[in-house]
Structure formats: structure tokens, C-alpha cells
């Protein structure tokens, strides 16, 4: 049996909803970053699923998926570095403690 496209999309939507909730509701900067990663992966799942079911011969979608993963990795590296620096400075990873970083 094949898994239909809708199933993939539902999973991706769930993942996206979890990611949004994590980013909005979590207080820890690390958890916010993880939420962002979930969001990215939800998009990636969407991209791969649409590729597989609409244009399996076109590999540009795979390239896009690899690009999303790469961007996610880089984003994570920079994000973790920032959080580490902030933690060293303020001894906390609570994002509410960083409100004085506004413009």
C-alpha cells in the first residue's frame, strides 16, 4: 500500500503546528531554536512529498530540500553560538531575559 500525499501533508502540517507552538510558547532559547528546526523540517517534508507525487523526474526539488537542510544547519550553528554567548554573559537562556536587546 502506498501512503497518499495527504498523509504526508498532514504530518508536515502537524510538524509545522508543533514548531510554531514551540517557537511561540517555549521560554528557553534552546527550545525556540529547536522549534525553528522543526518548522524547517516540516517545510522540507512538504517539498519532498510534493516532488515525489507531482514531478519525480525533476531533481531540483531535492536540491531545494538539501538547501533547506543546509540552511537549517547553518542557522542552528549561528543560533546556538548566539545563545551560548548570551548564556555566558547573562547566566540564563530564558528569552524573556533578552528583551533589552530590542531596537
Amino acid at each position, binding site marked *: 500500500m502506498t501512503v497518499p500525499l495527504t498523509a504526508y501533508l498532514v504530518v508536515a502540517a502537524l510538524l509545522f503546528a508543533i514548531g*510554531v507552538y514551540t*517557537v*511561540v*510558547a517555549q521560554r528557553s532559547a534552546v527550545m*525556540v531554536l529547536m522549534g525553528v528546526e522543526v518548522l524547517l523540517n516540516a517545510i522540507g517534508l512538504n517539498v519532498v512529498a510534493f516532488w515525489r507525487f507531482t514531478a519525480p523526474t525533476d531533481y531540483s526539488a531535492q536540491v531545494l530540500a538539501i538547501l533547506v537542510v543546509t540552511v537549517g544547519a547553518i542557522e542552528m550553528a549561528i543560533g546556538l553560538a548566539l545563545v551560548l554567548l548570551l548564556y555566558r554573559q547573562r547566566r540564563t537562556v530564558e*528569552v*524573556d531575559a*533578552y*528583551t*533589552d*536587546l*530590542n*531596537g
Partner: protein
Amino acid sequence: MTALLAIPLLPLLAAVTALAAGRRLPWGGGELVVAGVALSLVALALVPAGATMTVTWFESGDYRLTVGLAATPLTRFVAMVVAGVAVCVATYGVGYMGGRPDRPRFFAELGLFVGAMLALILANSLALLFAAWEMVGLASFLLIGFEHAAPGAAGAASKAFLMTRAGDVGLLLGWLLALAATGTTDVDALAGAVEAGRVAPGAVTAMALLMLAGALGKSAQLPFSAWLPDAMVGPTPVSALLHSATMVAAGVFLVLRLDAVFAAAPLAMAALFWVGAVTAVFAALVATAEADLKRVLAWSTCSQLGEMMVALGLGGARAAAFHLAVHAAFKSTLFLAAGIVQERAGTRALDRLGGFLRALPLAGAAFLVAALALAGVPPLSGFWSEEGILAVASQHGPGAGALVVLLVLLGGTYIGRAGTAAFLGRRRDRAGTGKTAWTMRAGTLALALAAAVLGWLLAGSLGALLPFEADPGAEVSLRNLGIAAGLLGLGIGVARGRGGSPALGPWPARLAAGLSAATAAPARWTTQLARRLGPLEDALDAAARRVAGWTWGAGEAAGRIEVRGFARLGDGLAAWLAAGGERLRALQAGRLYLYTLGLFAWATAALAAGALLLWP
């Protein structure tokens, strides 16, 4: 060329130097003026005939204004007469003004007078001629009013200035018209244009009549005569110079200089003749009844100038120029002799003079010679020039000839009366027996000599000096009639003149009073008008001040609007923007979840809007 330039400049230079350094000189600057004018005379003799020097003053479009001097036969001749008389009169003036502390001012003004007159005569540009003309007027004003503390001097000076100025307006308009018609101020160019018929006849007539007004004012012809007798309050050398060579001669000279223009305007020639004739007869009649020695001579000048105008009006330019020179010689002699008498007697009133022939033989002899010359007794100078005028007049008919004979008769009468009253009879004055300065005697003697022989010389061997073409001789009968008239006039004058009573009864004196009143009336009107102009001017002043006040107020209001309106508006806008910025800042709270929520809400809204729009 340098010599030409030096002629008018030397007296002017002498005048400036006399004013600056006259106080330290033994003759008070008089020697400078005498030397300056004498050097001009030398320069005049040296300057070649036909020498000209012209520079362009400025050009504007088609108009070219030049300034320059020219030594034509006419200008050389008249300039020689002026300079010659001026040397003698200035020499006389040195003695006349001897010892007075204000001498330098006198000599400076005298030098200005002579220099301006020489510039006027030599000018070949109407602009320069006019400027010099005005300078002559100014110098005469200063000199007539020299004794400004004396009663009447200031009034007489203003009268002379204003009356000649009334005529000068005519000259100004005339030369501006000439400039408009020919595009240049050059006198020769004007004459050429008029002769070639390039100027409309109406314009030529208007030009000639306007310039005639200037000439009449300067030469004291009717109706501008009244200033000349009043100018007698000036020092005697001034009177002598003013009446012979410098001031009044300018009017006659102007007509001579613009001969071509006048010749082309018959109306102006007729006006010249009639004004000259009326003035000559009128002034001669007044002179027979005048009670003041110098005023007799002044009216005589008016009359003689009228005679020149008659000759000019009849086309006798040569005769007029001849008479101008001769008249300058004998009239200045008469004035200088009268000045010597006045100095001795302390008065000029004819009824208080008398018997000076014995006390002042030289002045008496000079006066006698000049008086005989005026009466046209041969072989003295007046005979020759009056013969010339008689010839011109008799050619134009018996009326004009009779007029000149009448003028000679009247001339003999008034001068015979004046001479008799002053020199014959017995002494009636109480003055002492002072000594006349040698310079005064030298100046008088030189001019008397000129009065005696100048006519004979110019009629004979020096005739080439006279400008204009020679005329054929006078008819013998009229010549004899002229001599007879002169002698008869002298006889009448001598017979009735003893004691200074009027020669022809007192009625001519009323003529003078009438003229005086007639010229005083316009002056009074003008004064009243000027007084009335005062309030008008005040009103204009007030109006101008009010306008200025309004402008000031408007400026103030504009400033206030700027401060209260625009500035406040700008401040308000800036404050509002700042407050808006503050309010917007509140959105930037630094809370990550708010940012994320905003982001997702915005993305959702955008997607929903897009879906609704794209829904088929």
C-alpha cells in the same frame, strides 16, 4: 594742440592757485590771474588757425557726445578780445582790490570767469559750450555777489543768476534738440547738417528760437534785461569784464557761432532783429534818465548789445563781431574810468559827482575817448564798427538804417550826459584826494588806447582777423548822417547833462520802473509757487513715511507669522512624529514570541488574502 588746451586752462589754474596761495602773495593772487590770462593771450597768438582737438566723451547708440576745442577765425578773434580785455581789467583789479583781505577769493572767481568764458568761446562741442556757459553764469553770480555784506548784492546776484538761468533752459533744450537731430554735439557737424538740409526746417527754427532764448538771457535783452543794471553792485572790475567781454558777449557770440543755424531760420532772425531793436531803443532811453553812473553804462551795454542783435538779425555777422570787439574795448574803458571816479568820490550818483576832469585827468581822458568812440565819432573805434552796422542796416531799407541812426543819437546823448555830469562842472563831493594805484591807471590806459585805435586797425590792416566775409561799404549819406547823429547826441547830452539831470526828461525812468515791475511779478509768482510747493512736499514726505511705515509693519507681521505660524507648525509636526515613533517603539518589545506570532499571523493573513483573491 597743447597751446589750444592751455588757453582756457591757464586762467582756471591761476584761479585755483590764487585761492590756495593768494594770501601769501604781495598782490593777493592778482598777479597769478594777470599772468595766466596774459599767457593764454600768448597761446592764442601761437595757436595755428584751424587747430582743433576733439575727444569723444561717450557714445550711446547713434548718439556721440564729443568734447573739444577749436580755433576757427571766429573763436580765435573773440577769444583774443576776451583775453585782451581780461588782462587789462585784471591788472586794474589788482589796484582796485589793493589791501583787501578777501582778495584771493576775488581773483579766483575772476580767473574762473575768464577761463570759463574762454572755454565757452573755443568749445566746438555744444555740450562743452553749455557747461562753460553755466560756469560763466556761476562765476558771474559769485562775482556780482562778491560784496555779499553790501545791501542788495545778494539779491542782485540771485537775480542775475536766475534770469540768465531762465534763458539757459532754452539753450539746453536747443542743444538737446540739435543732438536729437544730428546725433552729435559737434558744432561744425550741426552747421554742416543744417546747411546740407539734413535737418527739418521746423526743427531748425525751433532750435534757433530755443538757443535765442539762451542768448537773450545772457546778453540781457528784453525781457531778461533787468538783471544787468542791478549787477552794478559788484566790484567795478567785475562790471567792466561782465559788460564788455565775458558775460554779455556770450549771447552775441552764441548767435555768431551758430550762424549757420540762424541763417536757416528766418523766423529766428526776425525775432533777433525785433528783440534787438526794442531792447536797444528801450535801454538807450532808460540810460538817458538813469541817476547812477554805472547804471547808465549798464543800460548802455544793453542798448549796444541790442544793436549787435539788430545787425545779426539782418545777417551782418561780420559787423556784429566787429562791434562786439570794439564795444568790449570802449565799454570796459568807461567802466574802469567810472570805477576810478567812484573810488575817489565815494559815490556813483550823477547828481553828486562833477568836476573830476581836473582831479583825475587820466580817467577823464580815458572816459572822453571811450565816450567819443561810443558816439561813433571818427576816427575812434566806435565809428568804424557802427559804420559797418549802418551799412548792413541801410541795405535792408531806410527803416533799419534810421533805427541805427537813432541808436547812435541816443548813445551820444546818454554818454554825453553821463560824462558831463561826472567830469565837467564843479566838484560837489567832499571826498579827499587819494592817489589812484598805478595798476588801475595802466589797465585803463591800455583799454583806452584800444578803444581809440582798435576800430581803425580792424577796419584796415588787421581786417584779416575778423571772421566772416567782408561786406561792401556803407552809403556816404548814411555815414555822414551817423556821424551827425552821434555829434548831435553828444551835444544834447553835454548841454542838458550838467548836474546829472535826465537828458530827455524824466519819463524814460518810468520805463525802467515798469520793466522792473514787469520782471519782478513773475519772480514773485514763482516765489509764491515755491512757497506753495512746501506743504505739497511735506505731504509727499508724510505719504512716503506712511508707506514706509506700512512696509515696516508688513515686515513685522511676516516675521510674526513665521515665528508663530510656520515655526510652531514645524515644531508640532516634529513632536507628533516623535510621539508616533515612541508609540511604534512599544511594538518592538524584545519578546521573541510576539515577533513570531506577528510573523505567522501576517503570513497567514497574506495567504488567506491571496487565496480569496485567486479563488476561481
